[in-house]
């Protein structure tokens, strides 16, 4: 009879420990650096644990290796950069560099580092770390993505140390997105990583195994440092005791003691964990907001509408005039004639009921999209692009003008009598996209056009689009937002993601030549109004010529527990912009 007592006692003990307030976490206290940055936000209170979840596991903690958003997000928590791209204001703000000067030639940038900043192990941060980082990035022994971003036409930037706290970077030509690009480069600790740099094992350092066994070796300049990583379980970050920001009362940020990320199986599990009150923040898709709202009062959270997401969705036709090695054209010639006819593409665009898609498929939480940027990208979005509202009569008129006519079988035929029929390829993993594809098929049927749907797995689809080119039409999405420089591979006719006809040697049409010119021009001036004028014209041409027939953009939502104060939610990017300023009056959830 004594046996059951033990588990009951244990349960009682666990319950007790769960109810009692958590022990006050004592943090190491260090004097604030001379160059401390004082936060202008509301003054809060230290303490608390912020919990979120991630459906993806980090593949590395080394910024030179990281290619995926999940790893990049975790690295951004502990590695800081010279400047920050504020996702809320879309402005460049001081980071580890307190200020910077731009020389009149618009190519020379002098960064003045914050004095007194220390790495999380207490070692001083200096210009040597900046030099070391660029040395590592440009070293051909360590191929990495940053090396490509930090060069213009294959030429590297010149990096010089003026003194311990001053660094000068010179670009070979004027390079418009310079500050934004530098803002993404996490600076590496020279004193920790130099041995690995010398013996050529830099890409192997700071991998997931190091993160598990020796988390303290991942030195931090950011608000947090890694405390522990258990694969498939959780990642715990703790407050960096040497962080260089403080509040107006001189209390060092971040306020939260710990940042816990639960690693879950998939997006469904992540959403469910938030809806049942297990996590503090979660990005929500429009179709899930409806039911999650019902749990808001029970678990004390609010759902914030971030507005339109930066994700675009579009349909396009293969306009590649080439042929495969056997001499067979990628696209049947008479179909290529339709696809390269602007009136045909505009007619299709007018035939799509985007309002219906928003209302039906996105539960009314989204808006029609007419151009390559969504309103989420406030700084660069052009609202005055050509729109194609749902108007089947206009579609028919455009088709008639282009020589198409409805035959006795009630189907559309071209001038030569060919039946207008094409196959639309999309990926099957995305149910919202499948729904849109079936709705598109119905819209086209009203115009007498036969659309066949083919759903492939993502890898096969990308192979068709980028390698074999043997398809007629596709439906995919791209994540927009950010600087126009990020769109060069899409808009430029040489680009790899110029999907309707990629990797062109010379632009196939005058308007593609014009876009090439504009994209190149905007890259070589630092003047925002000029760049904006150029990029506005790119967006206008894209909407006039409709190589991509844009569909809709869904709104993005973030759910956050009400106990968190000082929340600033950016329209794009991470869920919470100012994790270091978050605080809670309620230490227990």
């Amino acid at each position, binding site marked *: 009879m004594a046996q059951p007592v033990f588990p009951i006692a244990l349960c009682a003990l666990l319950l007790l420990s769960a109810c009692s307030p958590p022990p006050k976490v004592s943090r190491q206290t260090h004097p604030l650096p001379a160059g401390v940055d004082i936060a202008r936000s509301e003054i809060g209170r230290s303490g608390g644990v912020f919990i979120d979840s991630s459906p993806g596991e980090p593949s590395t903690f080394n910024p030179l290796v990281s290619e995926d958003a999940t790893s990049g997000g975790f690295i951004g928590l502990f590695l800081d950069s010279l400047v920050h791209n504020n996702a809320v204001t879309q402005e460049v703000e001081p980071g580890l560099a307190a200020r910077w000067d731009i020389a009149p030639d618009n190519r020379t940038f002098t960064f003045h580092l914050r004095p007194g900043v220390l790495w999380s192990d207490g070692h001083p941060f200096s210009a040597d770390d900046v030099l070391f980082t660029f040395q590592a990035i440009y070293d051909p022994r360590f191929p990495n993505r940053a090396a490509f971003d930090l060069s213009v036409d294959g030429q590297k930037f010149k990096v010089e140390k003026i003194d311990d706290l001053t660094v000068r970077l010179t670009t070979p030509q004027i390079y418009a997105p310079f500050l934004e690009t530098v803002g993404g480069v996490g600076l590496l600790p020279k004193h920790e990583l130099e041995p690995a740099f010398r013996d050529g094992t830099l890409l192997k350092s700071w991998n997931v195994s190091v993160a598990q066994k020796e988390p303290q070796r991942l030195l931090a300049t950011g608000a947090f440092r890694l405390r522990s990583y258990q694969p498939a379980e959780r990642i715990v970050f703790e407050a960096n005791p040497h962080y260089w920001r403080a509040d107006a009362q001189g209390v060092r940020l971040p306020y939260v003691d710990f940042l816990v990320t639960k690693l879950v199986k998939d997006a*469904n599990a992540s*959403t*469910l964990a938030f*809806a049942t009150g297990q996590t503090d923040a979660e990005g929500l898709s429009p*179709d*899930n*907001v*409806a*039911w*999650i*709202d*019902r749990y808001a009062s029970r678990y004390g959270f609010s759902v914030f509408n971030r507005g339109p997401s930066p994700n675009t969705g579009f349909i396009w036709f293969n306009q590649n005039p080439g042929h495969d090695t056997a001499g067979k054209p990628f696209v049947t010639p008479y179909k290529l004639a339709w696809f390269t006819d602007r009136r045909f593409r505009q007619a299709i665009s007018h035939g799509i*009921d985007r309002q*219906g*898609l928003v*209302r*039906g*498929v996105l*539960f*009314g*939480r989204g808006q029609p999209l007419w151009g390559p940027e969504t309103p989420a990208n406030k700084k660069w979005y052009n609202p005055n692009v050509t729109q194609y509202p749902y108007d089947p009569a206009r579609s028919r008129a455009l088709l008639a003008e282009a020589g198409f006519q409805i035959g006795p079988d009630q189907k559309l035929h071209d001038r030569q009598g060919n039946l207008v029929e094409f196959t639309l390829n999309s990926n*099957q*993993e995305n*149910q919202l996209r*499948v*729904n849109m*594809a*079936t*709705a598109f*098929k*119905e819209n086209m*049927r009203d115009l007498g056009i036969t659309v*066949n*749907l*083919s*759903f*492939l797995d993502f890898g*096969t689809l990308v192979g068709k689009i980028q390698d074999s080119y043997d398809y007629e039409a596709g439906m995919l999405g791209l994540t927009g937002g950010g600087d126009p420089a990020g769109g060069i591979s899409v808009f430029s006719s040489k680009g790899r993601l110029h999907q309707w006809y990629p990797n062109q040697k010379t632009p196939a049409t005058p308007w593609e030549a014009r876009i090439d010119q504009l994209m190149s021009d905007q890259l070589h001036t630092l003047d925002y109004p000029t760049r904006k004028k150029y990029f506005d014209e790119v967006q206008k041409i894209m909407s006039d010529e409709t190589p991509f027939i844009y569909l809709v953009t869904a709104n993005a939502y973030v759910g956050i527990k009400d106990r968190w104060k000082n929340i600033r939610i950016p329209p794009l990017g991470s869920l919470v912009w100012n994790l270091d300023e978050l605080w809670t009056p309620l230490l227990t959830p």
Partner: protein
Amino acid sequence: MAADLLRSLLRRPAGMISACLLLLLYGAALFAPFLSPTIPSAQDLSRTYHPPTALVWQNGHLSVRLYRLVDPSTATYEPLPDQTATLRWFSHGPAYKFFWLIPSTRHLFTVSSPATIYLLGSDATGRDVFTRLLYGAGISLSIGLIGVALTSFLGLTIGGLAGYLGGWPDTLAMRLTEFLMAVPGLYLLLALRAALSSRFPSDATFLLIVVILSALGWAGTARVVRGLVLSLRERPFILAANVIGQRPWTILFRHLLPNTFSYLIVAATLSVPGYILGEAALSFLGLGIQEPSSSWGLMLGQAQDIKIFMLNFWWLLTPGLAIILTVIAFNLLGDALRDAVDPRFRLPGK
């Protein structure tokens, strides 16, 4: 023999009920275009996730209630008080082809536009679930029949030949069946589907799935048929046939194989559910029937989303119910058939 079988089957309540149910289901699948009020691809983006419409008796006519979309962001609908639309019988609706041949516009029942009837609600793009269920039945149910026909044919031929000829054909056939039975079914299915998918246009997927499922399924039948033939060929009537000088092929096809039919009928009936579930599993995983065609597995796969459960769109799970009913019916029928065919197997108490 068939009449005897039928008579003894009908004497068993379970067999009779399941036979009737299956007849009903296959009938519904066959006459799907006529029975359904619309066509499976007809969408209505202003009525997505519409709940099943209630039927009421009003003014001496069967009518459907009309609904109003209260909140598009949660797809909440509310019946409009005292507003109904009268059901019209044998009226004209969207055009279809009966048996893929005879064009027609007659439907058993429709309501006049703009009202719509959703007997089992609507899906993510406002398509009628009832209509898609009926059209999907055609695919899901015929896959079972065609698949079983193919496997029975393959199993009978290969098993019969192996058992009768013996020697190296027997060894070859049996090693092949062992290989097929040793490979984990679902993985082989996935691998075959992936390898063949790029060569087939999407409308041929249906045939492709049947072929894949049959190519995997014949091994078991072949082994049993071989065993049956092995024991039958030592019986006196085969000896007699041999003695009067009948040719081996005649003996095989006239005397041996017909004697395995009773087993085959039972085995075939019991294996139909396997095909239906196989198709459902493939479509569920996104490797089977593709949009805009419908099948029960595909419909069920699309209902696998938390919001379906959280917002209680229960009508999207009806394909699951249809699968369960069909599978149970086939199993009961198979049991009843076995009892009828071979009284020695009859379980005590029956």
